[in-house]
Structures are given as C-alpha cells and as structure tokens.
C-alpha cells in the first residue's frame, strides 16, 4: 500500500461543468502523475508533477489543468467537462523500491470513474 487515495471515487457530471479530482499521498513522494484509462488505449499520461508548483504536460493534456500547492495533494481540473473526458482516472506516485535500483517505479491510487453526460 503506497498510501494513495483519490476522491471522489465516482462522479457523474454534465457537459460544460467544471470538475476537480483530488489525489492525496501520505508518504511525501516528490513525483505524482495523472493518467486516464480508456478501452483500447491503456493508460495515457495527462500531467505530472516533480515538486510543489512544478508540473509538466503529458501526451493527452488538452482540456486538463493541474495544481500542486502541497507535496501531498495533486489536483486535476477539467475546466469545462466534455463527453470525451468520460474515463477512469488514476493518480500515481513515483517511489524507489527498497533495496532496488536507483530509478523510480510508479504506484497507483484506486482510481476515479468519471462520467460526463
């Protein structure tokens, strides 16, 4: 258990409304990531963060913004939700394996299922 929680776990919203998903970690890891998962596409990187207020775009960042004002929280915002953003969203942290190589691997939160009507 990597101490990652996501909220909400399920959300149904309407097109055009803003939505914020929260990822919270308890282990003070520097790197945090947001992915979306859709059938046939696997996991695709939306945004990631390498520290407080330090973020960068992933491969599918259009329509999404992120913020990280505290180490433990990484927020994903859909400014104006569209039906194409219906997906399962996973947050992940980067962590080194105990006794393992000097490179991070990623551990995932439980996911948020978002439906945009």
């Amino acid at each position, binding site marked *: 258990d990597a101490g990652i929680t996501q909220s909400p776990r399920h959300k149904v919203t309407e097109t055009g409304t803003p939505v914020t998903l929260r990822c919270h970690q308890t282990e003070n890891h520097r790197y945090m990531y947001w992915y979306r998962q859709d059938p046939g596409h696997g996991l695709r990187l939306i945004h990631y963060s390498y520290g407080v207020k330090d973020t960068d775009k992933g491969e599918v960042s259009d329509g999404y913004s992120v913020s990280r004002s505290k180490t433990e929280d990484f927020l994903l915002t859909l400014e104006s939700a569209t039906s194409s953003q219906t997906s399962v969203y996973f947050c992940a942290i980067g962590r080194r394996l105990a006794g393992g190589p000097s490179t991070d691997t*990623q551990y995932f939160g*439980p996911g948020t299922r978002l439906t945009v009507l």
Partner: protein
Amino acid sequence: QQPVQSPQAVILREGEDAVINCSSSKALYSVHWYRQKHGEAPVFLMILLKGGEQKGHEKISASFNEKKQQSSLYLTASQLSYSGTYFCGTDPPARFGAGTRLTVKP
C-alpha cells in the same frame, strides 16, 4: 510514444505458458511491468534495467533487450490468479502499452 504490446489478448488453460512482448521506438533505461485486475488499479510486478539481469516474480519472469528496445514477460505454468491485463511501461513519467488481456481457464 507509447510502447507496442503483443498479443492484444491470449487465452490459456491452467498450467500453460505464455509470452507477452513489448517494444519501444525510443531508447529505454528501464522497462516496468504491471498487472491489472478488472475494476482495480494496476499493480507493479517488476522492473528491468538496461544491462540488468532477468527478473522474476512468482513464476513470472521477464527479459529486456536494450539494443532492440524490447522486453518480454514470461508466464510459466499459469494459474487462475494470473488472469488480468498486463502493461509494460517506460521510464517515468511512464508511457504504457495498450495492454495484453490474459485469461486463464481451469
């Protein structure tokens, strides 16, 4: 760019073996393998480093050919619990393949 996995799906009987392949168009320092059960989050299985040895987890092992930028996951004497979708991923921030759905039947 996302790695390419093959096959997309495989069905096995208990005790049979399977191989899942992953290839990347960019040079990799490491390859990460994950398994995801239906309705759950992906779970880390193992990491392979450039120049490193083949790794193992239960009866699951993997190899990494950095020159070809390819990795393979080997599932030996499969068990029902091995069913799920397997993903390979690149160095963080990871790009993942589309996944291989593995079904093990009694």
